[in-house]
């Protein structure tokens, strides 16, 4: 399998559409549809166009997904360094000339349109790492490859920390974990990694962080510091979910969200709206769909034609797993509140597009699992 040269697979094979795994893509589309409904239910009474916009984001996301299925993923792997480089240039541009939006320079404005390059950087970094693993097949990472991985992930993360957008920087974490876990790490490297973290955190605290950033981190560690922010949100989200009971209050019937007691109801706390209106049944259905999506992706990764395909799927699905677990756990206060959205369901342009691209790439690996199709 590994003897295959990339030139022989680069041409687009003629395949019929029925080979596409509709279970996988279908699950993603159902989740996105549930997301649109939940966004509608959370915002319809306030007269804002969130629902319409989310539909548009999904359309754009689906278009991007198709684009990332049609071309062989090896094309993306080969172009990954260029995409990665371009995106790095954008991040550097933001650090130097970026407009500050909500204390953070993470948005690129093109006319009325704006996007966060850091979201797309996640995909490109995953692609570069996958490309790297194509040629690295030892069961454990040696020091050189360990440092390469650190460099590939560390460079964009450093730039995003400077923006400073800690939430997004932290969401690169699953990529690191996946790379290390997948590549295999010896105990001494774990020690080195721990040591770096132990040095980096206090020095960042002392040297680089602005007071408001420190406050954010303190709130992360101790939600009671900001009872009307995180603490209040969690209390309200828990009340919403708990009062939903087993069968929920029904579509558009949630009172917590409508009475404005639940902040970020259409973004980070959308799952609380689902919990309130659809009850435990709705929660289990959504969690079940997510689990189904993840498990399918794992099977795809096992059956992938080559090591880079396997890693690409693992890396991308790790984003899903990370976002889902953190987001769902924070709804009922199992983890501290962070600005991490629920994939495919939370309102938001960049994250919706990012996750659809990821779905597309995973389907792409699945689509091209047979060598001689």
């Amino acid at each position, binding site marked *: 399998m590994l003897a295959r040269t990339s030139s022989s697979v680069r041409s687009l094979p003629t395949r019929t559409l029925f080979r596409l795994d509709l279970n996988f893509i279908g699950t993603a589309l159902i989740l996105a549809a549930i997301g649109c409904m939940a966004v509608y239910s959370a915002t319809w009474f306030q007269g804002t166009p969130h629902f319409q916009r989310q539909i548009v984001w999904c359309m754009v996301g689906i278009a991007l997904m198709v684009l990332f299925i049609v071309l062989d993923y090896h094309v993306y792997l080969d172009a990954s360094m260029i995409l990665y480089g371009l995106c790095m240039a954008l991040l550097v541009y933001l650090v130097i000339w970026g407009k500050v939006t909500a204390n953070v320079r993470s948005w690129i404005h093109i006319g009325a349109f704006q996007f966060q390059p850091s979201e797309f950087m996640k995909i490109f970094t995953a692609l570069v790492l996958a490309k790297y693993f194509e040629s690295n097949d030892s069961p454990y990472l040696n020091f050189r490859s360990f440092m390469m991985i650190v460099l590939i992930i560390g460079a964009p993360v450093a730039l995003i920390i400077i923006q400073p957008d800690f939430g997004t920087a932290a969401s690169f974490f699953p990529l690191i974990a996946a790379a290390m876990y997948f590549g295999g790490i010896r105990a001494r490297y774990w020690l080195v990694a721990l040591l770096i973290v132990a040095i980096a955190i206090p020095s960042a605290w002392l040297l680089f962080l602005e007071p408001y950033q420190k406050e954010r981190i303190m709130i992360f560690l101790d939600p009671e510091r900001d009872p009307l922010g995180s603490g209040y949100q969690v209390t*309200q989200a828990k009340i919403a979910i708990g009062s939903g009971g087993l069968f929920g209050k029904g579509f558009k019937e949630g009172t917590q969200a409508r009475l404005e007691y639940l902040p970020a109801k259409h973004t980070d706390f959308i799952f609380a709206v689902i919990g309130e209106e659809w009850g*435990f049944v709705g929660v289990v259905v959504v969690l079940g769909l997510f689990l189904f999506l993840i498990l399918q992706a794992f099977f795809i990764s096992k059956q992938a034609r080559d090591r880079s395909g396997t890693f690409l799927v693992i890396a991308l699905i790790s984003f899903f797993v990370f976002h889902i677990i953190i987001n769902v756990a924070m709804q009922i206060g199992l983890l501290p509140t962070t600005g991490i959205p629920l994939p495919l369901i939370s309102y938001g342009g960049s994250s919706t597009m990012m996750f659809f691209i990821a779905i597309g790439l995973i389907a792409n690996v699945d689509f091209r699992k047979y060598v001689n199709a």
Partner: protein
Amino acid sequence: MRVYRDEQKATQLRINILMWGIVVTFFFLAGSFWYVQAVQADRFRELSESNALRAVPIRAKRGLILDRNGKILADNQPAYTLMLMRPDVRQMEKSEPGHSAKLLQFLSEALQIPVEELERRIGASKVPINQPMPLAEDLTMVQVAEVESHTLEFPAIRIEPVQRRNYRYGTMAAHVLGYIGEATEKDMEQDPTLKLADLVGKKGVELVYDKVLRGIDGTRYEVVDTHGRTLSEYSAARREPIAGRNVHLTLDFDLQRRAEQYFLDNEMVGAAVALDPRNGEILAMVSSPAFNPNVYSRRFTPDVWKTILSNPFKIEVNRAIKGGYSPGSVFKIVMGMAGFEYGVINPSTTFHCAGSASFFGRRFRCWRAQGHGDMNFERAIKVSCDIYFYNVGALLGVDRIAEYARKLTFGERTKIDLEGEISGLVPSTEWAETKQNRKWYQSETISVAIGQGPLVVTVLQTANMMAAIANGNQVMRPHVLEEIHEVRDEKLIARQVVEPEVLHEISLEPDALAAMREGLWKVVNELGGTGRNARVEGLDVCGKTGTVQVIAQSGRKQELPFKYKDHAWFASFAPKDEPEMVVVVFVEHGGGGGSDAAPLAKELFAAKFGQGSNLDRIDLSDPETLRKLREGALPQPGQPTQGR
């Protein structure tokens, strides 16, 4: 130890471990939701019904306004406001039809406000519907008790203790202090931190230093049930307000009240400014008649507003900076300075006054028909000879006069830290051509030379000009702010001090300056001077009178009705050699500068330098005087002033 394993097997194993880990995590999450949604559901259902936080602003204490000696001019007093929660009225109406009518009836009786007025206030309020709305202010203790005893019956009303702006001395320095009022939509556009129903500065120091005085409101979070009834305070979320900073003014309480008392006692309309020529600090600024800012700073005062606006004397206008007047003979000082500056005269230049003279084909008269004879500068200033200054004007030409006058801040704003200052008008040939679309006639220059014609000046500009002569070379920016103090827990933690600022430099020759001061000294201190009423025993007061005719000179034998009487000016400084205070007094339709304006200058100099003053005459502890001040008793002009 190194064990070789097939890399694919290793990868597959790792993936399987990961998969099972994720499955377990998902089941754990689902289990947690089961706990919340099935086991604890009843508890959360109850909470969701009785759960709401209402954010109620805690108003920050507005900073104090004090005089230069730390005497408090404006502070805050505890008061009670009646707040109405409108959604709760609606809720109650549902369960008990007729509730709102009953509530209005009760409030109308308790507060003695007609039901229609209450309805009007509710209808006119711009406060968002889910926020408590102020319905009545300044409740008496009896009213508070009455309302409090009915809160069970009427849950939609509540008494809120507030800090009410209090101007301790009523009308005193009202035009400088200004007043506060509810923020308008325009205010909120300019300052997004403002909320509806916030009180902000509207005029004077309250407006100019609003951001300094305002402070930052805090927030209290109340837990309320679905009926809007307050259950408790969510104290963990409470944000304490930050009080505004204190503003220390340059005003001198004693001088200010004496000046105001003078206008009150004599029932005069006009303005006066006292300032320190060394740094531009305003020691007193009076505009008479005055208003009572305590009245303005209330929310519900439509009738009072009407009285204020319909007052024929425009009591809300600060005449010291917004009143534009003809300077009259006071302008002769500017003519003299400009004459020296451009070298058309020197201190020994003489002109002959024969009672009238011809310039540019027209005959101009001196105020003294029989003439003054040979005049040098000092004598001309002393007797205010018109012919002398006609000559200076003819030699200078209007454009040089205008250029020099502008240096003394005539025709431009003095940049004082009060709002609404006017720039006045200094005519020139360019002004005639661009603004009037006509040619400037040279004969008009002759009128300007004695302060008549299109000239418009303010009392403050005149004081600023006197300050330049007093300090000899600098035109200062006048200001009322002395210091800003940030006080926390009775401790001064930060302090900002205003530095003097020079607007223009002028360079008078020492002998010219000496001649000017000598002439002005003679006005007050020599027999035959026009300003003898400003003389203070043992103090060298220098000054210049001005009397501005409102109607032509002919036929002025009998007592004129008020609106045709002359305006009176007196501009002065003391002591002559090292001046410390400038006083300019202007009395609208006051009669003569020497008779009606000069005595106030004398009073202020005497008070400031502590010599031979009738200190006992003004006594603010006298209840009658205080009452007059508080009520903003308006003078009744038109009656002759008592023998001045």
